[in-house]
């Protein structure tokens, strides 16, 4: 049994799995049920001036019959009075002193508003604060959420105001609805953030009903853009975490989220630099009980790898993530088809023929039996065939030894530059 406990900028929790600020953390009843089930921490549903919600609010994408591949909502921050939330936070922390309880906050971009709410929530014993600069709908129209979160200066300013009074660690939650998340992440760091978390939801319109022509979801026939999350957003979230993790001026811990559904994604986020993860959609889909496999699976993974503590995973893959210009141009892989495993669906053939480099041949053996073979010399190693192949292990991407030593684009450009400046006649 490995040590699963983490310490994120001074916020300790017995395991790296926190509930993200969202419907599952709406009340003391829910958060306490989650803690009973084993969750290591929870970020309370965002507190602020009470708002009004609409009905309906959620929609999801089914992908080829699998429900909730992606999830979307047009819900706002908490619709319960602040006093009620504060009372329940107090009770919850008292019952579960070993768990991380973080208050998510969102108020108008005014110094006194931030000071006021920070003091109130810290008075009831939270372990940390998470500033919601991410919500993409409803609050943004009022200058809050992602409206502040998209402007680095506003992120820095508000973080600074919070830090003026905060006694507990401050996490700034970032919106992905921005061209370069490291800009706002850096602003948060400049404002004094102790940690950053990402991603909040991505602007989205889930669909249009083919019969009524209503947007999905709709409120009395009308819709508005919502926030996208769930398994489908993991690659976007993982990239943003990794970009921040490898950024030299973003040196604070990261709480990663967006599509974490099992222990596996948690491992990925942590390897890419997150100190812990937060989860919303998977719990909305299956309930708090998913934590059991998350802990069990993570434990077995660590044991199997001989890793004593989960924090030893943090950032281990970050150095492997760099810019395109730093990739070795002379490294080459090619597809190889295992005819014993191949079921002859020809999916790889047509993919390569119509959408890649026409280098799979359809051949017949001596007995007249059809088989496929990759012309390795022509294969560019794009992976497409192995991606569409339905049989595990039927197509392997094998490394082709290169005659040339490794050279990146940047090295190549530098070399050409040197050549040019030497004024050598290369013709």
């Amino acid at each position, binding site marked *: 049994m490995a040590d699963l406990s983490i310490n994120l900028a001074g916020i300790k929790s017995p395991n790296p799995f926190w509930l993200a600020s969202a419907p599952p953390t709406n009340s003391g009843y829910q958060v306490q049920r989650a803690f009973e089930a084993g969750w290591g921490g929870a970020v309370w549903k965002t507190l602020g001036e009470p708002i009004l919600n609409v009905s309906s609010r959620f929609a999801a994408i089914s992908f080829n019959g*699998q429900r909730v591949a992606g999830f979307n909502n047009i819900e706002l921050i908490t619709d319960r009075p602040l006093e009620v939330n504060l009372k329940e936070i107090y009770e919850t922390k008292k019952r579960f002193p070993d768990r991380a309880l973080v208050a998510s906050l969102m108020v108008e971009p005014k110094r006194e508003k931030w000071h006021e709410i920070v003091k109130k929530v810290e008075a009831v014993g939270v372990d940390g604060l998470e500033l919601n600069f991410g919500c993409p709908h409803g609050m943004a129209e009022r200058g809050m959420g992602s409206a502040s979160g998209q402007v680095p200066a506003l992120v820095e300013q508000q973080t600074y105001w919070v830090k003026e009074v905060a006694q507990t660690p401050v996490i700034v939650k970032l919106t992905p609805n921005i061209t370069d998340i490291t800009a706002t992440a850096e602003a948060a760091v400049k404002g004094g953030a102790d940690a950053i978390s990402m991603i909040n939801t991505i602007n989205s319109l889930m669909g249009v009903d083919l019969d009524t022509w209503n947007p999905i979801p709709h409120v009395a026939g009308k819709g508005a853009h919502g926030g996208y999350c769930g398994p489908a957003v993991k690659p976007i979230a993982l990239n943003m975490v990794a970009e921040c993790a490898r950024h030299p001026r973003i040196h604070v811990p990261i709480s990663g989220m967006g599509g974490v559904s*099992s*222990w*596996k994604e948690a491992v990925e986020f942590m390897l890419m630099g997150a100190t812990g993860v937060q989860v919303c959609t998977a719990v909305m889909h*299956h*309930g708090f*009980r*998913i934590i*059991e*496999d998350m802990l*069990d*699976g993570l434990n*077995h*993974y660590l044991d199997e790898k001989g890793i004593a503590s989960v924090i030893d995973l943090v950032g281990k893959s970050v150095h492997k993530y760099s810019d395109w210009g730093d990739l070795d141009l002379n490294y080459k892989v090619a597809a190889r088809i295992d005819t014993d495993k191949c079921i002859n669906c020809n999916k790889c053939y047509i993919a390569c023929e119509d959408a890649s480099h026409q280098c799979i041949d359809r051949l017949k053996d001596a007995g007249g039996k059809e088989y496929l073979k990759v012309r390795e010399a022509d294969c560019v190693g794009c992976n497409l065939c192995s991606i569409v192949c339905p*049989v*595990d292990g039927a197509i392997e991407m094998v490394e082709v030894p290169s005659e040339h030593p490794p050279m990146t684009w940047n090295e190549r450009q530098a070399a050409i530059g040197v050549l040019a400046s030497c004024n050598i006649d290369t013709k």
Partner: protein
Amino acid sequence: MNISLLDLKKNFQEVTAGLTDREAIEEANRCLYCYDAPCVKACPTGIDIPAFIKKIASGNLKGSAKTIMLSNPVGASCARVCPTEELCEGACVLNHSTKPIKIGHLQRYATDWAMRNDAVLFQAGKKNGKTVAIVGAGPAGLSAARELARIGYDVTIFEAQQEAGGLNTFGIVSFRLPRHVSLWEVNQVKRLGVDIRTGVKVGKDVTAQELLEQYDAVVLAVGMSKVPMLGIEGEELDGVYDAIEFIKETKTKPLTNRFVGKKVVVIGAGNTAIDGATCSVRLGAENVKILYRRTKEEMTAYDFEYEFAKQDGVEFRWLTAPKRIIGDESGKVTHVECVRMQLGAPDQDGRRRPMPIEGSEFFIRADVVIKAIGQTRHLDLIKEFGIEHDGGVVKVIGAHYQTSNPKVFACGDVIFGKGGGEAMVVTAAQQGKETAYAIHRYLTTLNETL
């Protein structure tokens, strides 16, 4: 099934192949992960089915195997022999919309992984200084031992056979349940420090009295005994077999070719009869007939077993009872004299009583007769323990599994009453677990009152 007469061993290989990785992943992802799932309630051992399936989907195979084996110490065997249509799969909510999840196959997939990887799944509890003797290392005895060891008891199992596992090791045909599966489960129990003394028959090598004196509690988990006598003429002839002994030979000795080309008659229509018949087919018998004195409706074998036997080419003769077994001068079976039956009024166990039709006698040619009309009870041993019983079925108090001697508990087939359909491995396993908890309660409260 294609029977090889040259390579009999091939015929005894497991009939159903395990799921491939892809099949397992696709099936696991099809499970809805129901809350308070009906499949769990339909599993006698209450395995958290959605949880173990979710773990297959997430790639946590060790966790999956652990979830299974925690609830069911013989979960790898059960994955193969449980009548899942009647249990978990029969209750799956997807019966109503698409098709039920292949729970048994997924359970096998996860436990096969644990077997292959020699995973250590459980640890013994801190020793509490108390001792329990268990008589019989079948599913019931092993389950009780596993749970008692996890709590912290010093457990000794006495097993008459040379190997542990009970009917899982010796009685259920290899092509449904290979021995190595059962022996792996035995090993899991041994790893917890349980002392399994094989080749020791209680009542002969060690007395009941000794156990009662030396241990704080005793569990009687001896199952049932031999197949009873038919009580007809010719039963002693050469070529008449007890089905359980017959199957045991195929699981313990090199396969014999003495059945190749033979005509086999199996008497009875339960699990054992089906196993005896399909075993005969696989040993190369030319023709195998099952005689049953009632009809298909009353037979206790499950539909899937019946289908399986039919696939194997086994013929069924309903409403047919043996009257006499006839042999030649050298004492070898040649024929069975049969009589046709008809069903009369229902008897005590609710099934219609079969009655012979006078003058309907006829002969069936046979070289081999396999008796599979149920099992007798370990009466002598039960008497030696001096506990109350009903015709060899040990009486226990409700869910406490305590016999008339408060120190003696009983579980598994030894308490399986008549007319209860077919005895199942999974029920024996659950009773074993509950017996362990009952003993723990008994010994703890005893301690407190002292």
